[in-house]
């Protein structure tokens, strides 16, 4: 049973998307789409523009050309804020607060998925027992897991994950894949960037390679 509304227009679609910095093109023009229940893997070498692409899709950067649609409608800030969850390089965690306090704040800010609580989200990512640990005392991998817990609690159907496998051991990589799988099963969608194809979620996946090649479905 799908937790999110099944959509007929793709959950995310980009047409002619291009971005340049200091008059140098970073990527584009790109055309691609992601349907509910799908994952899009964005590959490319360092500097190919994967992070920039994700930030443009998230709404943090303004594209120089092209348009992004969410659910068939033009992506406005309010639409994005409800439909998209972005997990970037920076963890957005306060090191002076405990893990649970951080999750409480982020849930207050973004809202919380029905039926999910910070406590069981932490259990899902394998951080049960660390609720009252200061984030300062967590390892890089544990911080990454905490970010994933926040993602799990978010009520948005579309996940934008920038290098989600970074800082994670094999267990952690499997965790990401399991979470993406479950999220897709619930009718969500995910866009992930990665350096190489060494880790990919075992789901219906499209590929987008930045750098020299063009998008291919």
């Amino acid at each position, binding site marked *: 049973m799908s937790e999110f509304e099944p959509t007929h227009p793709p959950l995310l679609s980009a047409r002619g998307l291009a971005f340049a*910095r*200091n*008059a*140098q093109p970073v990527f584009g023009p790109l055309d691609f789409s992601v349907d509910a229940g799908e994952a899009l893997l964005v590959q490319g070498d360092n500097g190919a523009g994967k992070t920039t692409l994700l930030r443009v899709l998230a709404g943090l950067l*303004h594209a120089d050309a092209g348009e992004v649609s969410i659910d068939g409608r033009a992506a406005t800030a309010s639409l994005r804020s409800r439909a998209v969850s972005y997990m970037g390089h920076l963890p957005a965690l306060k090191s002076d607060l405990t893990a649970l306090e951080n999750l409480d704040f982020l849930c207050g800010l973004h809202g919380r998925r029905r039926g999910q609580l910070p406590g069981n989200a932490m259990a899902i990512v394998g951080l049960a027992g660390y609720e009252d640990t200061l984030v300062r005392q967590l390892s890089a991998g544990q911080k990454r897991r905490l970010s994933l817990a926040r993602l799990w609690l978010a009520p948005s159907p579309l996940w934008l994950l920038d290098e989600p496998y970074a800082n994670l051991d094999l267990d952690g990589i499997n965790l990401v894949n399991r979470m993406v799988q479950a999220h897709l099963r619930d009718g969500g969608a995910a866009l992930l960037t990665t350096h190489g194809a060494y880790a990919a979620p075992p789901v219906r996946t499209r590929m987008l390679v930045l750098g020299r090649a063009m998008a291919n479905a």
Partner: protein
Amino acid sequence: MHPVVRWFHQLGSPPYFERFAARWAPIAYIAGLLVMAYGLYGALFVVPADYQQGDSFRILYIHVPSAWMSMAAFALMALYAAIALIWRIKLCEILAMACAPVGAAFTLITLATGSIWGKPMWGTWWDWDPRLTTELILLFLYLGVIGLYNAIDDRRNASRAAGLLAIVGVALLPVIHYSVTWWNSLHQGQTIRLFGQSHMDPSMLPPLWAMVIGTHLWFVGSLLARARADNLRRESGKDWVAKLAEPRA
């Protein structure tokens, strides 16, 4: 499309602006210099001496146009910045930032000439007169915009941030002036207003208008020259810029 509207759109294209500015900046400079020369000649030799201040009042012909220019430039800078922020037009970002150094220079000239005027008249190089004080703060606002523009690496973000500062500044400028005027009346009572409202004899006006027009022309020339340089710098990776640098056959 209406030809004027088309011209505006064309102007936003960097190569077109380069040609436009390269052509018009020297013309504006020369026209400005000629008009100012006429104005200065009138100010120094034609206009009769003031019956109260004698010859030293003549510095007004530089002081007043500079003061007007310093404020007009700030308002123009904020206007360009607003257009740049709302419609994301690159040329307006460039023009806004080009206004800043020119406006700052006029502000400095205003302060210096005001100071020089004050010495023979009231025996002091500086007075916390409302207008001079506001002009000084205006200088700081200009320097802040320039400083912020230089402190951020990405040129577009830098001009947008400095532009926002300019808009905040222009909104606060009347408040600053009002507050300093109020403060002046509070602390200095009814003392001499350094540059009070004096009525100028009509015979003294033509050179003033000439200086005002001349400084405006000079400002346009300076603006175009600076904008041209910034435009080239921002587009420096492109082919058309490289072609410009090639020696003409």
